[in-house]
């Protein structure tokens, strides 16, 4: 399912003395099957953009196209529920949304709100639980008796069980330890690869953006400051640094090395393996010439 934002503007508490412009003139295309990373500082407008992706917010100017559904400013938009079933959002600290007595009931809550039958929802719950790396034995447990990491996985399973075509992730690994972080990120990546799920990752982590995304959008002060592939984005590091953003460690290392060596490598490398290969090749060739 394609999503596209066309010149979207959003004002909080419009037409009151507290009015505040959050984003303006934001245009982003997310074709079906894309892995897009949305990057920016706290307050750059990225979480406002996120909430437009399933019509939690409706633009005060411009249009949001989600599949065949058009959400326009200045008009009453109907049938938003259909949109929300197709676009699942995993909010930051999603474990805070758990509320049911058992894990199973919590996971089937979303699907059943969207009219899925109970037996089908329960089947999906089992599949989703497996996807997030938990065993069926916890289905009957109370979600509040689980560890923090398990709770987060259950919450994610609840979103996956809705059967979305697009999944939006808002800092899904915040507060996890390194192992938990890697497991969660790898899980979403394999879902993206295997099921062709469009994935939109809102993150502070340049490492994750460089590793997983095929498109990057950088937000600054409510506007799209830059968009492109990771290679394109991280080739122009000066700009990023000027915006007060980090560059991935690999890129930072390559820049330091290039400076010391006084010459540039042929391109920007985004993984340790590629960079080490290119550098050692260069060093060896350097000796021969």
């Amino acid at each position, binding site marked *: 399912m394609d999503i596209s934002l066309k010149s979207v503007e959003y004002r909080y508490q419009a037409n009151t003395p507290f009015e505040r412009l959050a984003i303006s003139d934001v245009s982003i295309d997310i074709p079906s099957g894309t892995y897009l990373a949305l990057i920016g500082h706290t307050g750059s407008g990225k979480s406002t953009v996120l909430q437009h992706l399933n019509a939690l917010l409706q633009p005060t100017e411009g249009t949001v196209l989600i599949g065949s559904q058009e959400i326009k400013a200045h008009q009453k938009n109907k049938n938003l529920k259909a949109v929300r079933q197709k676009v699942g959002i995993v909010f930051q600290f999603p474990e805070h949304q758990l509320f049911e007595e058992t894990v199973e009931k919590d996971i089937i809550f979303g699907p059943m709100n969207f009219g899925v039958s109970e037996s089908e929802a329960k089947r999906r719950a089992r599949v989703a639980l497996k996807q997030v790396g938990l065993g069926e034995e916890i289905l009957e447990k109370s979600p509040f008796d689980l560890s923090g990491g398990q709770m987060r996985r259950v919450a994610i399973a609840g979103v996956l069980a809705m059967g979305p075509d697009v999944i939006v992730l808002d800092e899904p690994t915040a*507060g996890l330890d390194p192992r938990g972080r890697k497991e969660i990120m790898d899980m979403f990546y394999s879902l993206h690869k295997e099921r062709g799920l469009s994935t939109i990752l809102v993150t502070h982590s340049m490492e994750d953006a460089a590793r997983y995304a095929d498109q990057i959008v950088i937000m600054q002060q409510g506007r799209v400051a830059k968009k492109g592939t990771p290679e394109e984005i991280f080739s122009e590091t000066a700009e990023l640094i000027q915006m007060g953003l980090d560059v991935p460690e*690999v890129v930072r290392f390559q820049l330091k090395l290039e400076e010391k060596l006084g010459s540039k490598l042929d391109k920007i490398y985004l993984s340790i393996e590629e*960079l080490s290969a290119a550098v050692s090749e260069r060093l060896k060739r350097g000796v021969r010439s």
Partner: protein
Amino acid sequence: MKKSIVSLKEVSFQYDDQERYALNNVTFDIFEGEWLAIVGHNGSGKSTMAKLLNGLQFPKSGEITVCGLPLNEETIWDIRKQLGMVFQNPDNQFVGTTVQDDVAFGLENMGVPRIEMVHRVEDALKKVKMDQFLYQEPHHLSGGQKQRVAIAGVLALRPAIIILDEATSMLDPRGREEVLATVRDLKAEKQLTVISITHDLDEAAKADRIIVMNKGEVYREGTPEEIFSLDEELIELGLDIPFSVKMTKAFRQMGLTFTKNYLSEEELVTELWTSRLNL
């Protein structure tokens, strides 16, 4: 000779509702003026450690000494004056309705006279560069700013030791750097002892010494260089290794040789540069 400021002797602890020991026979010293990082994955026992050091829980067996005092119900309030804590969630430790009220909270508890309070509040907020925000309410502050206020609250009490209990884990990169830079400056200026409980390995890499916890026990103790040479072992413990160590490893696989693990990218870059000349 390094002077011990905190010492744990054969400390064990078990939560009432759990079978497993959260801490099992833990013994180590923390030395005056050092930055000690206690690392471990979630559930390794590192957070329990923080609670014990501050007397929020008491060990089932073993002994803890802080600044020469054995930690028990009688000494606890004196010990808390020596030992300030910054917790994980910036919101849930902000007691005051404004920045200055929050910093004053600890001083009020200690019964410091008002005139001195005003002076100490202002001073502490200057140190963490939050003195422009005296009247600000917490919901208008960023996570990093709230944590800096929490640090000011600790500083105002003039403790000898400051414990960061995963104090940066809920912050964005900018907030994390803000908080760590603040603590680094303070440590240099005041000869504070810093105990940072964390799973951020880049943060631990800058410590003087690291203790790795696993399953409630001290798994390994040493300098960052020693600890990060554990390499795969750390990853098995659910931790990570710093980037420069990963990079060194990758170069080794490409057939380059190095004498040691580099903890900073600069060192590694210099080494590569020299090796080019020597090849």
